[in-house]
């Protein structure tokens, strides 16, 4: 229950801040100022927007399929918020320690698609339907490189439990309740025999435990942008051609739910990427001999310090990833549909398959 309330609060707070941050980032990239009027440096802008949205009339078009139209935003938001249930925020704080956490997060994305079709069809609007169909084809296609890149991590860490994956990537590797003890070698190659289990830090992150996972992370990052319908993969809601895609007809609070779901998805994939590849809640500083940077900047699991440090590092890394997502959005132009499919099927999927193969070999070297 604690995790539920924490994550709901975190999500709402994040959306308020992220919308403001996105506007400021876009402004700075384009040599503008961004919101300035509401509050100090425009900090109250999102709150003002939200208050406006809540007051607005909840319009249902008369030609729309009323039931689907009304349910769709709830389905989308629920499915995305459900994804936060398995994210380990700190060594002890996780909604539910399911042993199939990674798989569960991938299924959440397919749930999202149903909501999008509902919204697109229910609106009875050609732009909405086009947006929904595009969105579905895009999400389903990019699910394959996404899943394959996640599979690389799963092969290396030999578990689907996100908390266990987090534990493996730091100095507390052997503090998890799993039966087998773990020894991390530098770059995951046992042959050199450099034991870095006690060094931890950035060296034991998955992208260092198996350097090829860095490329897997790039694939994951690109695919996750497509999954959350963000530029340059925002053809489902391309303003210049489809007005707003599947949420063209929505207004007021339901539209706010769509926005919440979109930003929630951003946060979810950023969290997932950080946990799978960038060490989760582990500190980036390694222990170097007597200079125990890793031990100083993180606490033992089970203590309050451990939880606070864990949450701090995880959220810090996630914010960096989200900043990167925003920079990408304001840098690149939107892809065409055929370019989108080319990138997915001809570039990312073969590359991800190759990485899965190499990860298998690497795993054989590691153990």
């Amino acid at each position, binding site marked *: 229950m604690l995790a539920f309330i924490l994550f709901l609060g975190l999500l709402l707070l994040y959306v308020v801040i992220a919308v403001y941050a996105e506007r400021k*980032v876009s*402004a*700075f*990239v*384009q*040599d*503008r*100022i961004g919101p*300035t009027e509401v509050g100090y440096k425009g900090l109250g802008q999102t709150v003002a927007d939200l208050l406006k949205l809540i007051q607005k009339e909840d319009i249902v078009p008369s030609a729309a399929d009323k039931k689907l139209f009304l349910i769709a935003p709830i389905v989308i938001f629920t499915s995305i918020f459900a994804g936060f249930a398995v994210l380990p925020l700190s060594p002890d704080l996780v909604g539910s320690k399911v042993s199939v956490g990674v798989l569960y997060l991938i299924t959440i994305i397919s749930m999202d698609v149903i909501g999008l079709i509902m919204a697109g069809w229910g609106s009875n609007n050609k732009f909405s339907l086009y947006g929904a169909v595009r969105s579905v084809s895009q999400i389903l296609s990019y699910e394959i490189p996404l899943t394959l890149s996640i599979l690389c991590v799963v092969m290396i860490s030999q578990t689907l439990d996100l908390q266990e994956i987090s534990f493996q990537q730091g100095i507390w590797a052997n503090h998890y309740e799993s039966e087998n003890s773990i020894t991390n070698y530098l770059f995951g190659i046992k042959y050199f025999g450099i034991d870095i289990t006690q060094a931890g830090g950035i060296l034991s992150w998955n992208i260092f435990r198996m350097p090829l996972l860095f490329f897997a992370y790039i694939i994951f990052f690109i695919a996750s942008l497509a999954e959350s319908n963000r530029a340059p993969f925002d053809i489902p809601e391309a303003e210049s051609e489809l007005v707003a895609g599947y949420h063209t007809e929505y207004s007021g609070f339901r539209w706010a739910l769509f926005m919440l779901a979109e930003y929630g998805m951003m946060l979810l994939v950023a969290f997932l990427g950080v946990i799978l590849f960038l060490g989760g809640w582990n500190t980036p500083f390694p222990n170097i001999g007597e200079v125990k940077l890793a031990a100083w900047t993180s606490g033992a699991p089970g203590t309050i310090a451990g939880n606070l440090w864990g949450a701090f590092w995880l959220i810090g890394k996630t914010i960096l990833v989200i900043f990167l997502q925003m*920079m*990408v959005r*304001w*840098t*690149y132009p939107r892809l065409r549909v*055929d*370019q989108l499919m*080319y990138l997915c099927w*001809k*570039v990312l999927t073969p590359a991800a398959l190759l990485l899965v193969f190499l990860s298998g070999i690497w795993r054989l070297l590691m153990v």
Partner: protein
Amino acid sequence: MTKGANNTYFGNIREGFSSLMKGLFLTLKHFVDARFRRKPIPVFDKDYFKYDKGIVTLEYPHEAIPVPDNGRYRLHNEIDDCIVCDLCAKICPVNCIEIDVIKSTEEIGKTSDGTTKRLYAARFDIDMAKCCYCGLCTTVCPTECLTMTKTYDYSEYDIRNMVYHFSDLTPAQAEEKKKLFEEQQKQKAKVEVDKNKGNVEDSALKDKPATEGEVKKPVFKPVIKPVIPKKSPDQDQDKKE
């Protein structure tokens, strides 16, 4: 689908990757440069062209680039200097100046450059919503009472407020002046009738139509003639045929 470098699969990927990184670093540079800001300095400042990075937006109502003193924006009429000659209203291409004239019974006064004022302006309205800022009215103005000022931000909630009234007469005063003039005209007409009866001609009344009818020839009239290239003789012949 056309591919990039060398038209190969891997060349395409390499080019895509390098150009993506380049783009990302470009925007990142702009993001980092957002520490700097352009100062609201006028164009005649020597540092004007030095601010070539950072935020360029000005928060307009709070800060603005100063306008040069000879900025040509809102029209202003110094009604004390105006002789109500109606030239500005005539030349205005969009008819935004409307003037109602009342003749006065005697000389009203002098403008600051010494021209005698003989006409009252019952109405001198400039509709700034119509104005096209061509500045023709200010050029024709003989007393230079109509000028363009450097005020440029004068939007209104009601478009009727965009009509500027420059007349210094109240309607009551205007009515009074009008009556006075009509009174005088009646007086004059009476005098004329009396004179006609006595076969005495008022020289002033007789001369006026004559002078008005006589068109003065301008001494020099500059005309820009289009330069027509001289045609070759055979072309002329062709035309004739």
